[in-house]
C-alpha cells in the first residue's frame, strides 16, 4: 500500500472483522451454545440415559430434538413454507408444550429408515417419532422403549371401486401389485395361503412402479400399509375411482420410542400421549381447554392439574397437559387435522377411534 492512511483503514477493518468472527462462540458447535459444551465437560457422556438425565439435558438445551421421517404424508411432511405437519410432528410439539409450555421449542431432525435407530441410540435425538412399528425385537433388542401407539396401521389393499370388491377375500384369483422383498409381500402370501385362496403377485423393485402398474390396470389390487395406501391414492390419475379396503391383514402399531434407562423421560412421553387420548375421551379440545379448567369433573380436574400433583411427579409443572392440549388439540383433533376425512388423505378413524367409539385407542386414567 502506498498510502499509509488506506493501509491503516484496511487494517482496522480487517482486524475488526477478524475479531467479530472469532470472538463470541466457537463457530463449529452451531446453535449449540454454551449449554452443550458444559454438559460435555461434566463427563456425563458415558452414562447415556440415567434417570432424569434426558429431561435435564432437554431443559438445558432449550428445545426437544425430535426425529421424524424425511417426508410421509400425514405423519411428517414440510409444507410450502417449511412448516412440518403431521401426527408424528404434532406429538413432538405436544411434548415440547408439556415440558416448556411452548410447542415451538422443538427441532425436527429428518431421518432415513436406516439411521433412525442410531440417531436415538447416540443421543442425537431425544425421541423418535417416525412412524416406527412397535415390534418385540425392536423393543427388547435395540435398547428402546416404545411409549404407546399414535396410529394403528396395518397392511391393506387398494382396489378400483368399479370392481365391486368389498373385502380381501374377494381378491381370490386376482393379481396383486406390491414391492419385492418386503414383509408386505410375505403378509399377502400368508393371508391367502392360510385361507387356501389362489392369487397372483406382480412385484416391483420400487413403490412407484407398483403404483403405476396398478394405475394402468395390470393388477386388481395394490397393497401396502393402509396409511401409505391413502397417500399413494392421491398419485393415481383418478383418485376417487379407487378405494382402500377396510380389511387389515397385518398389525403395524406405529408409535414414538425413547432410549431405555431413563424412566422419567419415558413417563413424560407416555403420559403426554395418554393426556391427548384422555382429553378426547373427556371432551377437552384445544378450543375449550381454558373453560374446562373450571370444570367440576374430577377426571378433567386431575388431567388439567387442578387436583393432585401428577405433573410434578414426572418433573413437569401441574398444567403440563393444558399446554399440550392447547398446542395440538386432543388426539381426535390431531388425527382429523393431519389425516382425517377433511384432508386430502381422507382416512377414517377405524381402529384409531377411541375404545368407547369402537376403536382400540385406550389410555389409562390420570389418577
Amino acid at each position, binding site marked *: 500500500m502506498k498510502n499509509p492512511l488506506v493501509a491503516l483503514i484496511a487494517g482496522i477493518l480487517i482486524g475488526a472483522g477478524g475479531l467479530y468472527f472469532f470472538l463470541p462462540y466457537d463457530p463449529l458447535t452451531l446453535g449449540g*451454545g454454551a449449554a452443550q459444551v458444559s454438559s460435555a465437560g461434566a463427563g456425563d457422556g458415558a452414562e*447415556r440415559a440415567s434417570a432424569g438425565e434426558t429431561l435435564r439435558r432437554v431443559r438445558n438445551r432449550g428445545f426437544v430434538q425430535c426425529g421424524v421421517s424425511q*417426508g410421509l404424508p400425514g405423519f411428517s411432511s414440510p409444507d410450502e413454507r417449511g412448516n412440518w405437519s403431521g401426527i408424528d410432528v404434532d406429538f413432538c410439539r405436544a411434548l415440547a408444550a408439556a415440558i416448556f409450555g411452548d410447542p415451538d421449542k422443538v427441532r425436527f431432525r429428518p431421518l432415513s429408515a436406516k439411521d433412525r435407530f442410531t440417531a436415538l*441410540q447416540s443421543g442425537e435425538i431425544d425421541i423418535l417419532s417416525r412412524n416406527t412399528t412397535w415390534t418385540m425385537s425392536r423393543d427388547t433388542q435395540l435398547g428402546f422403549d416404545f411409549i404407546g401407539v399414535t396410529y394403528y396401521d396395518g397392511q391393506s389393499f387398494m382396489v378400483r371401486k368399479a370392481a365391486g370388491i368389498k373385502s380381501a377375500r374377494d381378491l381370490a384369483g386376482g393379481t396383486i401389485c406390491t414391492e419385492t422383498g418386503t414383509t408386505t409381500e410375505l403378509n399377502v402370501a400368508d393371508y391367502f395361503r392360510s385361507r387356501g385362496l389362489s392369487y397372483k403377485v406382480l412385484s416391483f423393485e420400487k413403490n412407484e412402479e407398483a403404483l403405476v402398474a396398478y394405475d394402468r390396470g395390470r393388477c386388481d389390487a395394490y397393497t401396502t400399509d393402509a396409511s401409505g395406501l391413502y397417500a399413494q391414492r392421491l*398419485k393415481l390419475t383418478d383418485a376417487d375411482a379407487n378405494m382402500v379396503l377396510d380389511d387389515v391383514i397385518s398389525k403395524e402399531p406405529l408409535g414414538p420410542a425413547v432410549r431405555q434407562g431413563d424412566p422419567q423421560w419415558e413417563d413424560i412421553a407416555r403420559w403426554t400421549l395418554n393426556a391427548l387420548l384422555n382429553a378426547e375421551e373427556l371432551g377437552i379440545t384445544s378450543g375449550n381447554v381454558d373453560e374446562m379448567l373450571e370444570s367440576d369433573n374430577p377426571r378433567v380436574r386431575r388431567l388439567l392439574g387442578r387436583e393432585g400433583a401428577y405433573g410434578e411427579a414426572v418433573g413437569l409443572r401441574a398444567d403440563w397437559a393444558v399446554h399440550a392440549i392447547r398446542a395440538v388439540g386432543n388426539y381426535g383433533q390431531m388425527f382429523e387435522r393431519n389425516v382425517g376425512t377433511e384432508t386430502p388423505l381422507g382416512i377414517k378413524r377405524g381402529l384409531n377411534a377411541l375404545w368407547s367409539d369402537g376403536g382400540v385407542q385406550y389410555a389409562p386414567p390420570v389418577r
Partner: protein
Amino acid sequence: MAMEDVTGRPSPKIGMRASPVVWARRNLFSSVGNTVLTLASLYLLWLAIPPVLDFTIFSAVWSGTTRDACLGPDKGACWPFIWANIGQFIYGRYPADEIWRVNVVFALGAVALVPALIPSAPAKRFNLIFLLIIYPLIALVLLAGDRPGLRPVPTSEWGGLLVTLVVALTGIVVSLPLGIVLALGRRSSMPAIRMLSVVFIEFWRGVPLITVLFMASVMLPLFLPEGMSPDNLLRCLVGVALFSSAYMAEVVRGGLQAIPAGQYEAARAVGLSYWRTMGLVVLPQALRHVIPGIVNTFIGLFKDTTLVLIVGIFDLLGQVRAQLSDPSWTVPQGALTAYVFAALVYWVFCFGMSQYSNFMERRLNTARER
C-alpha cells in the same frame, strides 16, 4: 462422417460454406449406411422428443394455487407445485425472516465470482483472496449466525440449493489446493511424505462416498462422547472435501507426469528452489494440461452432493423429495415434475462449469492449438 481432413476432425470450412442441402447430403446421406443411421436417429428423436415437450410444455399446468389445478386426465407437468415450493427448494427450512442472509451470501458470491472468472478483469489477486478466504468466512458468519446481532441458525435448518452449493463449493475450494499438495507429495523423493500421500489417496479413493458419509453421520456419534460430536453438515463437508481431494490429487498427478524431465532440469539449472520450480514452471503447465480432468472432478462432485440426502441433510434433491410428501400437493405427475425441475437445475450448473472450462482451455491453449 465422410468429410474429414488429415487431422481427423471434420473440416469446418466445407461445413460452414455449403448450403444446408449440400451439407446434409455430404454429411448425413453420403452413403447407404449413413442414410440408414440418419433416418434411425431421426426416428428415435421423433419418439423421444415430442412426449417430453408435450409433458413439460404443451400439456403442462402453468398456473394454479392448489393441487386441484393439476388434477384431471391428460395433464402434464404440474409447475404450480414448483412455484409454490420454490422457496423451500432454494433455502430449505431456513427461517423465513432470516432469508436475507442467504440472499446476501448468494449476491456477494456472484459479485465476487463474476470478475474472478473474467480473465481481463482488474485486481485479480485481491479478488481471488477475497473469494477464497474472506468470502467463506463472511458466508459462514452470515449463514450460521451465533454472533452479536445475528440469530443462530442451526445447519439442520439449512436446505435446498443452499446446502447443495455449500457442499459443492466447499469441496471444490478445498479439494484443489489439497489435491495439488497430495499430488506433489506422491511424487516427492522423501519416503515419509510419499508414503503418507499414497496411503491417504488410496484410502479415500478406495472407499465409496456413501460409506464415508454414513461413517461420518451415523457411526461417529457412537464413538464420541455425547455433546462432543460436531455438526452433522460439518462432518459431511469434511468427508466430501477429503474424498474429492484424493481424486483431485490423481488428476493433478496426471498433469505432472506429462511435464518432460527437461523442464525440471532447466528450472534447477537456473537456480530455482523446489517450490519455485513447481510454482513457476511445472504447475502452470501441468494444471493447464488437466483442466478437463479438474472440471470433470468438479462436476462429478457437484452431482455427488446429492448423496448427503441419505444422512438426513436436505440438499436440493432431498428437499424436492420432501416437498413431494406434502399431501396438499400430492398429484399423479408430481414426482416426475419435481425430478425434471431438479435435473434442470443441476444441468444448468454443470453445463455452466463445463462451458467455462472450455472457454479457459481455448484461452490458455492458444499457443498450442493443433
